[in-house]
């Protein structure tokens, strides 16, 4: 099985999907000759031409609004927002409009569209190239939000997003793009939206996480195993709809839940996961539902020292594991 980075898997998946279905178009800033600022669409304009790989004006609301219109008129657009931090002008078209196309027309219209978004920090991106933006979208009925963390999942979930009959936000952690490598089969496959995966089985406690933090959690779990603590790591993979059954099953089985995320914790994915565990697993728990996240400050300072202090790390996760395991 060939090994790919996350960004290579994203590019290969878009290429394969565009070959499979000529109603798929790609639009965004610098996605043409430049190949996208992260090179996610490198070379695609050469194969598919300017009609299907569209360098848009620098205007995020219209990138998403045009995608909606194209989607309701028979295309399957993949819109790229260059950085998650630049997505706010498009919130109206996504949260306000795309999410309600099907519901607001009683099923007469649908918007089969994908919005790919590099997000997350730890890359010296400062306040405006580091943000985690998942909560607004994950809060919105009618949208799906996926956050693949591995090349394998990036391919399977991006393919599912592109083939979905409804809008899907695909969050790609920009630090994983070249950092994370893994085997990706050449053959076509999809991963269902809404399904979590246990990336490391364990018995003593479960870490619930997603994105870059999955990799930090796996490292921390490995360190903990040297201390005799057997940690399970559950990758949420989809943030809306959350895989409530998988979350509850794992929490009930290990009896201890540690939720790790890079986004600030207040009113966040970890809040929701904690609520699910609290509601469904109360009598199976052997310790408090514990959350590890950054401090409640605007994410995240440019200063390397402050950035490191902000970001969760394998060491911080190990400390939280140890504390919870000892209870």
């Amino acid at each position, binding site marked *: 099985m060939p090994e790919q980075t996350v960004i290579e898997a994203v590019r290969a998946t878009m290429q394969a999907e565009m070959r499979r279905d000529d109603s798929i*178009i790609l639009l965004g800033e610098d996605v043409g000759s430049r190949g996208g600022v992260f090179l996610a669409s490198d070379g695609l304009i050469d194969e598919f031409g300017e*009609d*299907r790989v569209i360098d*848009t*004006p620098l*205007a995020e*609301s*219209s990138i*998403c*609004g*045009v*995608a*909606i*219109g*194209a*989607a*309701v*008129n*028979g*295309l399957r*657009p993949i819109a790229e927002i260059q950085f998650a931090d630049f997505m706010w*002008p498009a919130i*109206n*078209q996504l949260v*306000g*409009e795309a999410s*309600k*196309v*099907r*519901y*607001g*027309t*009683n*099923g*007469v*219209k*649908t918007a089969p569209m994908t919005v790919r978004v590099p997000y997350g920090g730890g890359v010296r991106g400062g306040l405006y190239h580091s943000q985690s933006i998942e909560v607004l979208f994950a809060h919105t*009925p*009618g949208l*799906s939000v996926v956050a693949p963390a591995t090349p394998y999942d990036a391919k399977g979930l991006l393919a*599912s997003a592109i*083939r*979905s*009959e*409804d809008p*899907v936000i695909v969050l790609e952690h920009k630090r994983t793009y070249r950092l994370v490598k893994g085997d990706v089969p050449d053959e076509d496959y999809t991963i*269902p*939206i*809404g*399904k979590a995966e246990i990336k490391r089985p364990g018995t003593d406690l479960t870490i619930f996480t997603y994105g870059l933090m999955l990799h930090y959690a796996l490292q921390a779990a490995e360190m903990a195993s040297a201390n005799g603590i057997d940690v399970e790591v559950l990758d949420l993979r*989809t943030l*809306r*709809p*959350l895989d409530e059954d998988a979350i509850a099953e794992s929490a009930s089985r290990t009896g201890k839940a540690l939720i790790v995320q890079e986004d600030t914790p207040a009113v966040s994915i970890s809040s929701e996961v904690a609520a699910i565990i609290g509601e469904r697993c109360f009598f199976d728990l052997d310790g408090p539902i514990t959350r590890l996240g950054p401090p409640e400050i605007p994410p995240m300072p440019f200063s390397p020292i402050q950035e490191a202090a902000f970001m969760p790390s394998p060491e911080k996760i190990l400390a939280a594991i140890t504390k919870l395991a000892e209870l």
Partner: protein
Amino acid sequence: MSATANRSSNTPNQNSGEQLSGERLVDLYKTMVLSRYLDERVWLLNRQGKAAIAASAQGHEAAQVACIEATDPSKDHYLIYYRQFTAMIALGTEPEEMLRGFLAKEADPMSAARQFPLHGAHPRVDLFNFSNVIATQLPQAAGVALADKLKGSDAVTVVYFGDGASSQGDTHEAMNFAGVHKLPVIFFCENNRYAISVPQSKQMGIESVASRAVGYGFPGVQVDGTDVVAVHEATQAAVERARAGEGPTLIEASVERLLPHTTDDDHTRYRSAEDIAQMDERDPIKVLSALLKRRDLLTESEDEEIHSAAKKRGNVATDTVDAEPYPGVETMFDHITDGSGNGGAL
């Protein structure tokens, strides 16, 4: 007016470049009168506590019927906004269907009463309006037109908006995108000089929305929106341009908003008595009635018959729809997502 006459008026002249015949002018007049009566009826239903909210098209009727007359509903796309009451009728929406939207009845064809009236999507023609947020439909229209261009279709997309919407960033972004890609889209602005209470002088530093088109590289034309013939000609030219692959046109139709913004508004709070009184001579029903009579296309008694037929049609529709049920809770979970690829969760 009989239902048959109404349907015949809903079959626009699809021969591009042709002038409106006298017969078609009378048909358009019938549609306008029917719209006016239903519009008035909806306000009465609001005052009776049966229609929660209404935004009137009174004063906009000529612009709406004449624009649609120049298009082809069998293939074109229409992204409307909340004041497109007459446009919906011109596109074949039956009076009962209009009233179901206002009375939030189960059989509302646009959204099954999930949305405000005139929002949702039409089941028979490609007419839709996803939201109440002003100007979001403009970038969406550019996307609809982009899809047609890529598919090689010669369909035209018409997107409607008001003078207030011209201030939104989405309007700029949409026109800019459409200009870059020379998209087959018609930006149709119905300028009634008021965005709820804010007059045009506080909305923009220019006299004409159409003058902005130069900034996007396509033509902008201003027409008298009470003049059916002028609006039809301007739209015909825009349609021909779009079908020929020459790109967008911005049409600004100057109209009057004869009533307050909605049933919840009182325009005497912000419009002078003179300003309100002067609108009377620009009432498009009166303007077209006078034109038809000058051209000997309509007699006084025929005019009276058109009005009484419209009133009867409205009465029948009201009685029918008033007795219909509201949607129950059992359907409120339908159509959030398709329930397969997205897991079907709420």
